[in-house]
């Protein structure tokens, strides 16, 4: 136990002394939280739409005002080039152009059939679908408000109720997810680099020839990183609360429990990588590509797993972040309890055992 | 055309508060083998790097191949060859590729390079080693390859910074034989070392300690002057005495 403590302290000393690892440990989580929290945003707002009003009636002017007064749309910066709508889209000055032909006002008054034409820049998928649906909403509301007061349209009225995230903020979805990404990145990156460094400088051999068991060394090296991972996780959660206003409904203790399992699984990936490579450089490249890429792309962090082709969906099952994402989102946003996550937790433990098994196998082979 | 290859006056290099080279002066003649003997950190490498135009002196002046080391260091580079203790070869390139590349760096044309490679490969018996990646070569062959890189453009003066580190005595002997023939052909050789036997091969040596030249002369003269048995005991004695006089300051 004494040895363990000694190795752990030595490791902690290494981390605290190296400005580069301090940078990774504390600056990176903050930077990533801000970047992902603000830059990755699926809430389509303020889409630049150019409206060409050829009707010039009170009705058309009101409709134009409604477009620009809604949160969805905003005006193009210069309205000089409205003559060539396509050029506006090509130069990305506007994402859509709405054309109100003469006769709109009269049609609205008489209830005649009339079509507005909307030209949408389809080169950004995330925008094009939303623009069409928003434009329809603005128009329908405009038409509804012109019906006589107290008149209720027959047919189905939808009464909408949104649970857990009533303001529908993307950041409530992404920021808890970031904990999953950053925890695995830090744990896997730092452990694989530190073990590779010991290999590079030859100190690993020194340690191995000492009368210490391999798992003592590993455990001793890992404990400081578990502590750091938890510090980082807490840091992001504090940011989530203070900066992004993400609620935390569920049990902190439960999150801590699953966080521990997840971090251990992540560390086992780090050990696996360091067993396979001998240089810090390679360790870093492997750690980044094997944790960062799948955790961001294949976990459901941004992109829904069910949209992926079958092979990638299957692959996503060995991405630990996939399970932790469900857990952390469930606990924080929905207040879900232990019973809900038994399956996810079991998968994390299973992955950890598999990774560790392979790692220890190759470690013994490599150093024997 | 005078007979002086290297001439320096009061050459000094300071890094912040630390004076690496402290006002050294010396003259080396054409075709001479001149040695800088000193312990690690005595300032030998810093001095040689200033002569090669890799470092700008903090004070003092000097001429290499008749050119000013402060104003004409670009022109000096064409006239000198340099070989450092690290054998700066590209490990992933073969010997031939290394030679071709450095040849082009000197602006030599293809047929000239090819001719020189043939000449040098015969002279240094490089043979088959030219076609192997240089990282796979034993140290002795790396050293020869590095020497041939330094000689490719027929320099007047050759600067060697601890050229034989990690090489066995047999190889070292052969290496020096090559240097002697070069000197006979009129190439000036300026070498730094901390090996005593190597220093004995030099025509003249300067002993450096803490950035200063503490004594100089032909090896046997130095031994005689200090009443020593050999160069090694002379060197140790000299450094000891130097440290005693340095201490109060």
């Amino acid at each position, binding site marked *: 136990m004494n040895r363990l403590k000694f190795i752990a302290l030595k490791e902690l000393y290494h981390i605290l002394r190296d400005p580069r690892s301090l940078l990774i440990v504390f600056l990176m989580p903050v930077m990533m939280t801000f970047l992902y929290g603000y830059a*990755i*945003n699926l809430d389509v707002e303020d889409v630049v739409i150019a409206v060409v009003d050829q009707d010039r009636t009170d009705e058309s002017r009101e409709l134009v005002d409604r477009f620009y007064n809604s949160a969805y749309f905003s005006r193009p910066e210069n309205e000089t080039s409205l003559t060539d709508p396509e050029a506006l889209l*090509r130069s990305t000055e506007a994402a859509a152009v709405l054309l109100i032909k003469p006769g709109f006002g009269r049609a609205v008054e008489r209830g005649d059939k009339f079509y507005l034409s909307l030209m949408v820049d389809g080169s950004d998928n995330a925008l094009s679908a939303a623009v069409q649906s928003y434009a329809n909403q603005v128009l329908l509301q405009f038409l509804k408000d012109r019906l006589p007061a107290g008149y209720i349209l027959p047919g*189905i009225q939808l009464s909408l109720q949104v649970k857990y995230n009533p303001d529908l903020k993307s950041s*409530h979805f992404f920021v808890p997810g970031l904990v999953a990404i950053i925890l695995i990145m830090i744990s896997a990156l730092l452990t694989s680099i530190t073990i590779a460094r010991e290999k590079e400088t030859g100190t690993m051999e020194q340690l191995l020839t000492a009368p210490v068991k391999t798992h003592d060394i590993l455990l001793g090296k890992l404990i400081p990183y578990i502590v750091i991972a938890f510090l980082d996780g807490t840091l992001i959660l504090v940011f989530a609360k203070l900066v992004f206003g993400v609620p935390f409904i569920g049990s902190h203790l439960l999150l801590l429990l699953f966080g521990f399992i997840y971090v251990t699984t992540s560390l086992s990936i780090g050990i696996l990588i360091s067993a396979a490579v001998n240089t810090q450089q390679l360790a870093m490249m492997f750690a980044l590509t094997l944790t960062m890429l799948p955790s961001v792309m294949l976990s459901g962090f941004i992109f829904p797993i069910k949209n992926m082709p079958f092979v990638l969906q299957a692959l996503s099952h060995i991405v630990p972040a996939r399970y932790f994402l469900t857990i952390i989102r469930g606990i924080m946003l929905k207040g879900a309890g232990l019973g809900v996550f038994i399956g996810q937790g079991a998968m994390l433990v299973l992955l950890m055992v598999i990774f560790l098994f392979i790692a220890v196998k190759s470690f013994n082979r490599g150093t024997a | 055309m005078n007979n002086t290859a290297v001439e320096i006056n009061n050459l000094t290099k300071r890094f912040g508060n630390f004076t690496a080279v402290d006002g050294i002066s010396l003259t080396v003649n054409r075709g001479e083998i001149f040695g800088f003997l000193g312990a690690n950190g005595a300032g030998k490498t810093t001095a040689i790097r200033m002569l090669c135009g*890799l470092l700008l002196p903090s004070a003092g002046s000097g001429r290499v191949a008749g050119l000013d080391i402060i104003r004409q260091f670009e022109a000096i*580079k064409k006239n000198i060859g340099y070989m450092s203790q690290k054998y700066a070869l590209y490990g992933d390139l073969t010997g031939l590729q290394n030679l071709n590349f450095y040849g082009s760096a000197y602006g030599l044309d293809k047929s000239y390079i090819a001719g020189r490679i043939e000449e040098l490969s015969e002279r240094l018996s490089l043979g088959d080693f030219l076609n192997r990646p240089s990282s796979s070569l034993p140290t002795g062959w790396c050293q020869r390859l590095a020497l041939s890189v330094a000689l490719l453009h027929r320099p007047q003066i050759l600067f060697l910074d601890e050229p034989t580190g990690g090489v066995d005595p047999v190889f070292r002997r052969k290496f020096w034989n090559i240097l002697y023939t070069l000197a006979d052909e009129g190439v000036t050789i300026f070498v730094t070392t901390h090996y005593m036997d190597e220093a004995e091969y030099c025509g003249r040596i300067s002993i450096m300690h803490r950035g200063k030249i503490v004594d100089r002369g032909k090896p046997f003269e130095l031994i005689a002057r200090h009443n020593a048995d050999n160069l090694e005991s002379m060197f140790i004695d000299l450094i000891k005495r130097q440290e005693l006089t340095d201490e109060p300051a």
Partner: protein
Amino acid sequence: MFRAYLGLIKKEFIQVFRDSNMLRMIFAMPIVQLILFGYVVNIDVKNITLDVYDYDRGRESRELFDAFKAGDYFVPEDILTDRDAPPLWLIEDRFKKREAEMALVVPEDFSAKLARKESVTVGLVTDGTDANSARIGSGYAAMITRTFSQDRIDYTPPVEIRSRILYNPEAESVYYMVPGIVATILTMLTVMLTSMAIVREREMGTLEQLLVTPISTTTLLMGKISTFALLGIFEMILTLILGVLWFDIPFVGSPPLLFALALLYLLTTLGMGMFFSTVSSTQQQAMFFAWFFFIFAMLTSGFFTPISNMPRWMQYVTYLNPMRFFMSITRGIMMKGSGVADLAGDIYILAVYGLAIFGFSFLRFKKRTA
């Protein structure tokens, strides 16, 4: 010093081809990125799991169920198999287990009211965790119920919007990811290689040997940079070919214009690489800087999500990112066939960035090595 310049380029290429890791990276990078980004980046909201609590059990409610079932927006499931089945509190439980994303509650008098052509309220409960799916899903639901009731009561709004989607009417996400991948790969490869190259020579000790040759710093730098520019362009061609052949992406605009502007953009990336090499003393540090820069550049370029979605201040931050402008150029040329006039603003800013960054780093580099 043209001979030395060519010699350098030749040497760099030999080194690249000797290095199996490097070769693997050069060829694997576009393939991995194309597969990952091409297949994964897809925020289309489809197949939403929808629990239907049908308390009406009438003809109309079944038809509403079928209306939700048609198309690929929803996968509805009839939750109330018999009248005494678990009540509404089940909704949240199913949300927590992620067995359902939305729930539709149809009241008992649904069919009756519709038959009398009255207004009837149907409840739609949404799991808002995934804000995007929730928003788009409720939009779909509104659309379906609207059409459903319009069919029953013969009412259509007098004014409708006819929209025409230009450039990518089927909303294939690969079409807009591939131009983005072209920009990210070009950035990553050239910044990374340039930042590490000089440091590598210094670490190996060959830089000193180079500096005693009459080769000038400018030639040395140009030789290296030209190699990486060539590799970058090669990588770009590889990505484009794979994109066109494998993913069938259209290439509407002018390829020569794209390559010309890529060269302009390279000024920036090579400049950044040089800058990182002047502030790092080991290859690892250089790689770190390059990586940090890359993450920032990728996230603020509009690669994944539109820049207009970001908060206003963040949108200003994106102006600091040169890749943002190149991304809009690649998408413009490849998808919309934009020409020089359309892209004038982006080109102008890119030129300013390129000259400033390249010039600054170049001078800094010369000063540091002299």
